[in-house]
């Protein structure tokens, strides 16, 4: 068997050899990172967003690039999933968007701080992550109903916020129900009331009270009532 000297040699040679390889690969990786497209889009805004991300220990609940605390959603692709408008509304009052659900601290971010955070999330979402996070494999596609019957076009607000949770014609989120035939179930007046204050109509619902103006509510409900 080995002598003590040979064992020591194994330890020393192994350690130095692999440390050297590790340093070489580190050099190469940094070269790769700093020459990739992501380093060109790393703006002041993104950097400020990262500072806010760290200053408030967002990683203490969320994960980003798969690193964090698994208590709140993975945010690498949140920009793609929810869109900037939704994130903006959400960050102003997180609990209002998920009434009665897992809580997030309400931070008093200013408008520009929220923009910085959104820029940071967008930047991370655009990184080349070698296939992470994986696309779900057995996801059932939402049923497509004749959403073409709508004569009113989809309001901008709908695309920005509602599609984060609801889907129409197969595209959108799956948190809330698909809205393809919502007009069959509810009339214009009901939808208007609903959008004004969902909790009042159906206490305990997961649907948040969104910061919508009266004209936006009008547009949205007339659009929705046409989906039959």
């Amino acid at each position, binding site marked *: 068997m*080995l002598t*003590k000297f040979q*064992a*020591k040699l*194994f*330890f020393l040679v*192994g*350690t130095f050899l*692999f*440390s050297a*390889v*590790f340093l070489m*690969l*580190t050099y*190469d*990786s*940094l070269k*790769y*990172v700093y020459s990739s497209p*992501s*380093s060109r889009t*790393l703006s002041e805004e*993104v950097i400020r967003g*990262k500072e806010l991300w*760290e*200053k*408030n*220990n*967002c*990683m*203490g*609940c969320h*994960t*980003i*690039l*798969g*690193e*964090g*605390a*698994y*208590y*709140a*959603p993975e945010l690498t692709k949140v920009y793609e999933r929810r869109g900037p408008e939704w994130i903006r509304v959400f960050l102003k009052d997180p609990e209002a968007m*998920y009434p009665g659900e*897992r*809580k997030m*601290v309400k931070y008093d971010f200013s408008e520009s701080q929220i923009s910085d955070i959104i820029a*940071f999330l967008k930047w991370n979402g655009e*990184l080349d*992550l*070698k296939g*992470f*996070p*994986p696309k*779900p*494999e*057995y*996801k059932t596609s939402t049923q497509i109903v004749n959403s073409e019957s709508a004569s009113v076009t989809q309001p901008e607000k709908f695309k920005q916020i509602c599609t984060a949770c609801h889907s129409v014609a197969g595209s959108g989120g*799956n*948190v809330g129900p698909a809205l393809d035939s919502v007009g069959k179930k509810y009339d214009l007046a009901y939808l208007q009331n609903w959008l004004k204050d969902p909790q009042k109509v159906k206490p305990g619902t997961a649907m948040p009270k969104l910061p919508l103006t009266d004209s936006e509510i009008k547009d949205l409900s007339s659009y929705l009532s046409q989906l039959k």
Partner: protein
Amino acid sequence: MKYKSQKIAYWFFATCMLLLSLQIIYGFVMGFARMGFDVLHDWIPFNAARATHTNLLVVWLLTGFMGAAHYIIPDESDREIYSEKLAYIQLISLILVGVVSIIGFHFNIWEGRKFLEIPRPLDYLVVVNVLLFLFNIGMTVWKGKRYTTTALVLYFGLFSAALLYLPGMIQFNSQTVDSYFRWWVVHLWVEGVWELIMGGILSFLLIKLTGVDREVIEKWLYVIVGLTFLSGILGTGHHYYYIGVPEYWKWVGGFFSMLEPLAFLAMAMFAISMYRKSGRNHPNTIALFWTIGSAVMSFVGAGFLGFAHTLPQVNLYTHGTLITAMHGHLAFWGAYAMIVFAILTYAMPLLTGRKLWNNPTGLFAFWASNIGMLGMTGAFAVAGIAQVYLERKLGLDFLTVQKEIQVHFLGLVLAALVFTAGIIAFIINFIRFGTPTDEALGAEQASGDISLARRS
């Protein structure tokens, strides 16, 4: 104990027990939050509880390692510690930094990088503190009457741990680079230099408890730490699969991660074979339980469960899920918590002169905490597998999935209660030993410390 100054170790151990108790309390806060009882949200939001829980873990383990060094290094170097006063100053300042950081977490003051949440200004104090410690222990080794491999490996481990804290203090603008260097600290600590510290403590305990020849034990110590670095350094790559660095990390990280369990397997086989070689039985059987237990559990938790999700094909799905929490809990417990408990159990009778070994409370502490921790690991595993399947395979919404797996956290909290019962028993035993006295000097003879008895 052989030297008066070894008594310092006791105060490090006592701090350890205090911080561990706090860590468990914060663990419960999080367990309940995950069950849906987030009643403390306004005072201790999840991110504060989480940062406190993990930072306390790091600090109490480091305190334990420092305590171990204060016990082992004088013994191995055959002299008193270089400066007793420095040791106490260092301990007190360590506690201060820890307490200030933890209070800060509750007021939204932190650096916000997982495991490295301590705000940067306090980082500098940590550096000064650790330099004090390294100087004091280093001078003891330097001026010692003999240089043993055990002492050198332990010191090299502590030194490298301090050195590797530095890359975590540099600021990077890119999340990719930030993440890259954060792992230099976190991974190279727990899967590199901390294993040196663990190896050092383990070999000291095996020399004392089994009476096997020092030459034999120290030779294997070199082989084990050699294997650790051979696999662990490039094994850092398993954190680099999906952060935006070159593709080759999947191959490098995957391959060397496959080798990582070897070091732990060697450690377990080494501990067991040394135990079987021992001619006589040391009376402090519980210390032996913790020692062998640590080697075995670190193989299960760090080696096996780590291997279970480090291959890139698997990690693609398990990355950033509760599977990591499952592996993390048993790995830290087996490799580092248990070895601290081992040295503590071994040293306490010698520090206080009270032969309180092999009592029912001590045995209960060992079994309850281990069974509890295995139960917690199981709960995390089931929750994690369900999460991966529902969220990553079926594409269900995050919060929907969390509701589905809430029930597993009831299991987690129940297992945590068993674990806590064990830890309480351990602490009761610790308190029963009382404080160290000078009368315990030279108590090795009476303690049946095999190798020492043979030497004299």
